[in-house]
């Protein structure tokens, strides 16, 4: 089985639209929505949730005021300014708390313990294109990287059991922990970029990240006709750096229309954009051989 993670650096370049079309073209296939911060793939693929699982990403400190003698040691030791005095009582700021447990270790009264912070849910689902694992990170929750790892690993497990040929991982924007978790151990990264200076800048950063982790990387230029000149520059860059450009998808409002209809664009329309994505998929299959 081949696992392909779709990344971009910059947000809003069209990762999810491309992944949902791949799901349709490669069906049956396994899917993992690793953009756990702002998951959108379900809006197009309409998964039926078979099992939901709680996720406690982080532990946070909790102070038992019945035991606390207000010695102030915890507040002095905390490097994250996570312990406040509110109305003469010690309180942990759950958002600031990194869960390091230094306060627990040193509290002379054993008044502090680490408790699970419920920080989301993840789901094993079925779509008409194949199994899908996805998640919803709790609001203001930490540890999205660990949740991404759970989603990716479970999707892989299901895909292997069912002997699937491909698995697609929808990544999140940026280059930080959830992105690193979404490309760890995968066979291939496909960067979806757009011909804007921002898109190009962030594409270069994400390509440095995939190179850092030795992941073979290919590039697709979405909305390529928005700026033909920059598209050309990206193609030259791809040539120069060995990040092969394997597809160009034209700009068309039909992509938004298909999203409103809740359909992968390749199912909503047969021309133009859909032909570009079909060609991209067949090129990608060639690359994966």
């Amino acid at each position: 089985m081949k696992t392909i993670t779709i990344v971009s650096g910059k947000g809003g370049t069209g990762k999810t639209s491309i992944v949902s079309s791949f799901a349709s073209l490669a069906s049956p296939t396994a899917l993992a929505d690793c953009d756990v911060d702002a998951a959108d793939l379900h809006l197009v693929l309409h998964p039926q949730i078979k099992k939901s699982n709680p996720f406690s990403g982080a532990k946070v400190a909790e102070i038992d005021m019945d035991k606390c003698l207000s010695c102030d040691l915890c507040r002095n030791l905390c490097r994250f300014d996570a312990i406040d005095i509110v109305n003469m009582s010690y309180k942990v700021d759950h958002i600031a708390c990194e869960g390091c447990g230094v306060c627990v270790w040193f509290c002379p009264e054993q008044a502090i313990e680490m408790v699970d912070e419920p920080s989301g849910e993840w789901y094993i689902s079925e779509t008409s294109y194949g199994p899908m694992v996805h998640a919803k990170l709790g609001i203001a929750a930490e540890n999205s990287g660990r949740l991404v790892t759970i989603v990716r690993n479970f999707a892989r497990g299901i895909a292997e059991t069912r002997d699937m040929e491909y698995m697609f991982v929808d990544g999140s924007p940026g280059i930080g922990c959830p992105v690193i978790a979404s490309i760890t151990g995968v066979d291939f990264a496909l960067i979806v970029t757009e011909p804007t200076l921002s898109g190009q800048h962030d594409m270069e950063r994400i390509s440095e990240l995939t190179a850092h982790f030795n992941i073979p990387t290919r590039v697709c230029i979405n909305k390529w006709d928005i700026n033909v000149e920059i598209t050309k520059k990206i193609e030259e860059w791809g040539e120069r750096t060995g990040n092969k450009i394997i597809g160009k998808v034209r700009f068309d409002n039909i992509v938004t229309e298909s999203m409103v209809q809740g359909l992968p664009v390749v199912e909503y329309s047969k021309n133009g954009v859909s032909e570009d994505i079909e060609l991209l998929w067949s090129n990608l299959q060639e690359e994966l051989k």
Partner: protein
Amino acid sequence: MKIAIASGKGGTGKTTVAVNLALVLASKELLTSYCDCDVEAPNGHIFLKPDIEYRHTVSIPAPKVNMDLCDGCRACSDICRFSAIVVLKGEVLTYPELCHGCGGCRMVCSPNAIEEVDRAIGTVIVGNTNQLLYVAGRLNIGEASAVPLIRKVKSELPENGFSIIDAPPGTSCPVIETMRGVDYVLLVTEPTPFGLNDLRLAVETVRKLDLPFSVIINRSDIGNDDVEMYCGVEGIEVIARIPYSREIAEAYSRGDMLINHIPNQIELYSVLSDRLLEHVSSRVAV
């Protein structure tokens, strides 16, 4: 006065709004800063083209063990919840990239065998352009956590005047760190199912942080009416609507400032900045 521009979904136009709004405020002779907290994928410089005054490296502490002093007690690996320091067959191994810099290992080491050394995670960049102070962060490639860098970037902002803070997309730690301590949040969205889904998450986040906010609908004439309806039902103010135009998309692609290149945009951002000033000044008065 700190105003964060955030979104949930990526690519809705945060940076476009932030740079144009910041420049309009600066042109009104208000002391203004633009602050790029999207340290994973910073783009503000592409539009503002600032003159850089200085850069400095941001580091977080990581443990360094002096094995001559270590008595093999394992307290360091016992306290570390991030597996950043482990004792294996009398050898102390450290994994700096997993270290959160809490200092616990050094605190528990009774023979004082552990010192903390700086580990670079990124760069803070400070400059200026057109009467505007420019502050940005750039996370090093392969670095997982943007949070300590964002904290440092924000610490460069002046206390007075206006700071327009460009947030990363999403709703997790880097976004929370960006929004902590700001006075107001503008959420930029687009009227599509993805835009709405991620706007809801962003709204929940801002509400959890108890911050005043309003919404900007970018590309307001694409998609459907669901974002408008959602804002209506939730009683959320839509402070601006920016219609789609190919001209804007092309100017954006070239890194042009919309207010300098597209005639109706200067008025749009001027009206937006006036409305925003009314909101934030009334809050200060209260």
